[in-house]
């Protein structure tokens, strides 16, 4: 018998690929961990992200998709696979409403997981409540995302993260007057920088807001406005690209040592140290909503392993990716605990999600819970890192943020016996 060499190479390559994939998957932990592919009717789950100029918020849905793929390859949920349907709102409110209707009403998804957008939550919060569906978001930025009955996120958003940064500026850097630089987007900049102002007032200190138009080319005027406010500390609460432009303007004026510099989470991105001049080394302190990207905890290591085995190599490994993974994991854990015959029943799934109490992960500082409430922000403690030449270094471990804003949440946590 004549053997075709190419065929042999093909078989060897196929065997090698399968073995490689198995090796890659050997140290991941997903769902039931059976190592067998799920089968049967799929459980439909939805996800919406915003990906168009000026920003890409798809990291959370990418990570959720990777985790669901991992779960599907490891026995699924009660043996059934998850079909994850992801849509892009392109930062367009009309499109955001359309894709939500498509997923919730036409496709009949049982829950939304890993959503990430500036727009989607503000538009769709009433629709989720009306349809009694829960959104376990991963990349929230607007107030409606944290102040709605049917949305809960694993990330903190700009308000909590900015307060965390402001606390560090006051307690560790001696700030007495903070200028918070935010985006002039309703429910985003005024909401989060306003909370920083109220935090400063609660400490008998001064705070002010400078809101930048996201498309404005000139960030210099914003910098000068902050200078004119009399601030001694500047808190940057902007998407990374705009934040870097702002820091470049400040560097141009040699303000690095004139003010103390803090930032909310968007600057905690692996690309940032390379995009900033070494001038900023040890000068910019950044709040991180979840653990460090190289955190050695088992869940963070599992996130990295799942991304390596089941995500595209170009998918970001950032904070939103961590939170998307975590939302997906908590969702899968919740469905696993439900009776098998109830996991297609949206009302039952919603009730189970609202019943979540005290889930833990080394990715977040506190306990994750949902509960029946008009506001959800389970993650309101974080860490601080400082910018280094080639990365970041942790300078403060888990600390809980203080602000009048969290009083209601703390009461809920007490009633759930989580404190």
């Amino acid at each position, binding site marked *: 018998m004549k053997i075709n060499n190419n065929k042999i190479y093909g078989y060897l390559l196929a065997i090698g690929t399968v073995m490689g994939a198995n090796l890659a998957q050997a140290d991941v932990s997903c769902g039931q961990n059976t190592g067998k592919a799920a089968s049967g009717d799929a459980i439909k789950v939805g996800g919406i992200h915003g*990906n168009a*100029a*000026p*920003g*890409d918020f798809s990291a959370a849905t990418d990570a959720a998709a990777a985790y669901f793929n991992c779960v599907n390859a490891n026995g699924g949920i009660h043996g059934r696979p998850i079909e994850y349907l992801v849509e892009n709102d392109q930062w367009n409110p009309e499109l955001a409403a359309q894709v939500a209707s498509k997923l919730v009403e036409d496709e009949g998804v049982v829950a939304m997981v890993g959503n990430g957008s500036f727009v989607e939550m503000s538009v769709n919060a009433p629709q989720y409540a009306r349809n009694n569906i829960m959104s376990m978001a991963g990349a929230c930025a607007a107030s409606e995302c944290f102040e709605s009955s049917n949305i809960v996120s694993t990330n903190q958003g700009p308000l909590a993260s900015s307060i965390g940064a402001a606390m560090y500026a006051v307690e560790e850097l001696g700030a007495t007057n903070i200028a918070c630089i935010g985006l*002039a987007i309703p429910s985003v900049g005024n909401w989060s920088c306003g909370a920083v102002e109220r935090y400063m007032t609660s400490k008998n200190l001064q705070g002010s807001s400078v809101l930048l*138009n996201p*498309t*404005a*080319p*000139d960030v*210099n*005027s*914003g910098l*000068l*406005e902050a*200078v*004119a406010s009399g601030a001694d500390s500047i808190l940057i609460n902007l998407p*990374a*690209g*705009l934040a*870097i*432009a702002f820091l*470049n303007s400040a560097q*141009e*004026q*040699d303000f690095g040592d004139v003010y103390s510099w803090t930032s909310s989470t968007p600057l905690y*991105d692996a*690309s*940032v140290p*390379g*995009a*900033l*001049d070494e001038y900023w080394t040890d000068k910019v302190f950044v709040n991180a909503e979840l653990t460090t990207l190289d955190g050695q905890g088992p869940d963070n290591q599992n996130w990295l392993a799942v991304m390596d085995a089941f995500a595209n190599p*170009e998918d970001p490994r950032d904070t939103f990716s961590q939170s998307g993974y975590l939302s997906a994991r908590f969702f899968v854990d919740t469905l696993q605990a439900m009776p098998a015959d109830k996991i297609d029943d949206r009302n039952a799934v919603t009730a189970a999600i609202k019943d979540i109490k005290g889930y833990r992960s080394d990715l977040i500082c506190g306990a994750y819970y949902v509960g029946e409430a008009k506001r959800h922000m389970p993650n309101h403690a974080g860490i601080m890192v400082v910018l280094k030449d080639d990365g970041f270094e942790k300078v403060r471990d888990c600390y809980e943020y203080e602000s009048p804003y969290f009083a209601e949440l703390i009461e809920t946590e007490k009633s759930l016996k989580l404190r």
Partner: protein
Amino acid sequence: MKQKILHLLLYALGMLLICALLAWGKPPKIIGLFVVSGFAVGSLYALGGIGLVVLYRATGVLNFANGAVGAFGVMLAWQLGQMGWPGPLTWAVGILAATLLSLGYGLVIAPKLAWRDPVVKAVATLGFAIVTLGLTAFIWDDDVRRFSLPTDKQAVMVLGLRITVTRMIVISAAIAIVLGIWLFLSHTRIGLQMRALANNRDLSALIGVPILKVETIAWTISGLIAGFTGLMFGDLIRLEPTVITFMVIPSIAAAICGRLNNLGLVLAGGLFIGVVESLLTLSPLLKQVRPIAPFVIAAIALIWMQRGQKLVFSRDA
């Protein structure tokens, strides 16, 4: 001539008056900072506007794609820099790429629209801008990047604000281009042919103006300016293709301040828009309207300077 100078003086006086009103009651040191900051941004608008007017005067095409080809050029320069190419070579390749894109459009698409209405020509370049932006965004996905020049590190103090050498290069380049183009158009044969072509394409063709050659030169000059402007925008604004592409919008406002014709007024208009935008920040009430400032200023300038004399989009009318 006297009347023209009087108009220019009134124009300048109006600009000063608006700036004075916006700055009224603020400490001189703060005003100085905002004025200098406004000049720094305004010089970028002026540079973009000059690139638009140079091509418009020579070919009758208002090129909305200038920002997009500049964005492609600076992204390419950044990419080559990441690959370890020496700085000056990356800048040259970036400017060359923008020039080739501009020239490609000028030689392949623009001649097919040569006899169409100026508005059609302008809208076609908008399509080219979107295609170029799409291509750029496809090659370089959304990420945090920085493009810097060695001149960013050197600076002088002007009214309390540090002005980097890069910003001084922008202002100097804007003035040098205005002077250079004026000399070129008024003292060279090609310049004369460009003016003839812009005034009346049919007649120019009949009297033997080499249309292809003249337009090739015009698109090349425009591409060079767009490439240089792209590098400056990438360094001084931010390295985001969308932001650089749409910098063409305030640049158009600056160009309209010069009636798409007078490069000196484009320079003045761009600087004025930058200063007014900056000074608006001082007013808690008016700072929200900063994004529309370029267009309000362009509209006022247009109403004042045209006064029924000339149509912007139909030079032959």
